[in-house]
């Protein structure tokens, strides 16, 4: 039960975050994007950049 609730919570959070990314993306686009290449995530090269 707890695991299922956790999964629902994570799915809701991911959905909200992905939608917020569209808003942030628009502001970033209006502002002018930061560079030509994909931005490395904070924390080093072990992390993803873009799918």
């Amino acid at each position, binding site marked *: 039960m707890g695991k299922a609730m956790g999964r629902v919570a*994570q799915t809701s959070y991911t959905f*909200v*975050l992905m939608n917020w990314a*569209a*808003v942030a993306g*628009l502001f970033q686009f209006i502002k002018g994007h930061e560079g*030509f*290449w994909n931005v490395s995530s904070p*924390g080093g*090269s072990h992390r993803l950049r873009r799918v």
Partner: protein
Amino acid sequence: MMALIFWIALTVTVWVYIGYPLLLLLWRAIGSRPVNKQFQEPGVSIVLAMHNECDRVDAKIQNCFDLDYPASKLCIIVSLDAPTDGTADALKKWEERGVKVVRTATRRGKAAAINSAMPFATGDIVLFGDARQNLAPNALRELVANFADPSVGAVSGELVLLDEDGKESNEGVGMYWRYEKALRSMESAIRSVPGSTGAIYAIRRELFQPLPAGTILDDVLIPMRIVAGGKRAIFEPAALAFDRVTETPEMEYQKKRRTLMGNYELLVRAPELLVPGRNPILVQFLSHKVGRLIVPWCLLALLMSNLFLHHGFYRLSLFGQILFYLFAMCGWLISRRKDTKSELQVQASSPTVQDSAIAAVTRE
């Protein structure tokens, strides 16, 4: 007025995430267009545009040599965009093995790097990829087989996100990505997918048009131009590329923000994609790509308008929305806890279990 805003916002949101997938299901059931796939071995040029990839370049090129495809039919081209970390030096030994390296002195971006590489591509088919992801040995063969069908102009492979145990991720970001792939698979069966996976996609060389400088989403613009030209851009789930799932939704957010920024840029660069008659997959493009840009504003409008509507169904809807955002907040707290844990794990182990898992999968 508030009721009108509420219903418009609800309709758009439900359409993008539920209605459109249901339409695709129905459409596929009645109007599927199978691809005449036949295994063949035309010449293939692999184009890899890189900036600073010193740590990954050896593994990537070795992965290309390990593909199950005749070496005599393969041409690997690495286009360097003024790297500063020694990537150019790391490539010297590969040049002796026949890898073509295209260098530029000034940094001009990925789109320009791809443009610089294309004149050196000699194969009928061009495979594009990123330095980060490894391809399964049979990936190229599976992609190329689709070009036996003359209606196919571009083929995208499937990116598999592996979790820390080396299995396909099923939670959070992994689930979101699986939903995306299900959509692409249905869109492909009907006609074309509005975009490709940057990690693995191939096109007919003759259909390539130089990219405008600064293009962010080459993996959307290239296939969409091909679709606009009348050919199909399909999804081949048997051609696999492997990557690690992001440890937290926040990292996925960073990537997604850039991708969505690229979608805004795409609409500015190629507004004809919004014109009926100019885009053969207008419904798919509007529902899948443009819809994702509109839904956040609809969610905001839905909540705001619902605050002024309290009777009957609206009361239930407000309760549902508040519950949903409370769950999202819990998800944020869980994610923060995971993030702290993963930071500790990363500090304790390098390379990660996922790196080994990906290497094992791509060797199979």
